């Protein structure tokens, strides 16, 4: 089955989103997902290059969480939905949260 999302997210450069970042997509580390799988999924869902995806994976592995994306709530939810289709633990939260 094709990965699908009712929201159809697409990657967007961080510079364009920096003006009004209201919501963030947070990836939470889990003991089950292999590093290579996480990198593959982050590249697939966000269009990250390998270095960026690996950096996010390492951050989550070392700190327990990594912020993957900032922007509108609708698109943040769309990304989280996609990540959850791949069984990665991701949440959406307001950017002002500590």
């Amino acid at each position, binding site marked *: 089955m094709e990965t*699908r999302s009712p929201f159809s997210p697409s990657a967007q450069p961080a510079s364009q989103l920096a003006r009004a970042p209201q919501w963030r997509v947070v990836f939470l580390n889990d003991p089950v997902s292999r590093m290579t799988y996480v990198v593959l999924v982050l590249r*697939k869902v966000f269009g990250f290059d390998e270095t960026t995806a690996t950096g996010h994976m390492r951050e989550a592995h070392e700190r327990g969480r990594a912020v993957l994306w900032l922007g509108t709530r609708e698109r943040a939810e769309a990304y989280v939905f996609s990540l959850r289709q791949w069984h990665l633990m991701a949440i959406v939260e307001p950017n002002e949260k500590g």
Partner: protein
Amino acid sequence: MKRVEIRLDLTNVAPLLDVLKSASDVLANRLALPLNIPELDADSKELWNHDLLVSQNQDIDGLIKLFNREFFREETIAFDEANAESMIRACSALKLYLFNEYLADLDEEDFESDNVIFDVLSERQQKPYLAFMFLDTLQKVIMRHLNDFILEN
């Protein structure tokens, strides 16, 4: 179309298929990864839960169907561009279930670095652990050979 065939030893794999089938039966009605997102409202949670469950079960059904009569005759399963994505997602869903249900009390560091000593596992954990490692290996093989197709799809 690139195709990867994996020959499996039936005597080793057959006992694990019961574990996988039982896991798939449980996951028919629940997500492998619980939908614990505080910011989602109740309507969205219901919609997501439904859609994610449909997606999860289509993936898992596809994986379970690989172990059909032909598999028991040929001892081979095959992956290609058409099913690679779905199969690695199915492996993840089943791995999550097996971990949470049977293996969560293992040392996380040992588990992540594959340093679990089989003999110290309880009887209840042994087959699920082998099933987990089997799925993990399948997932690795698919990613090793079909990574580019998954990214480009």
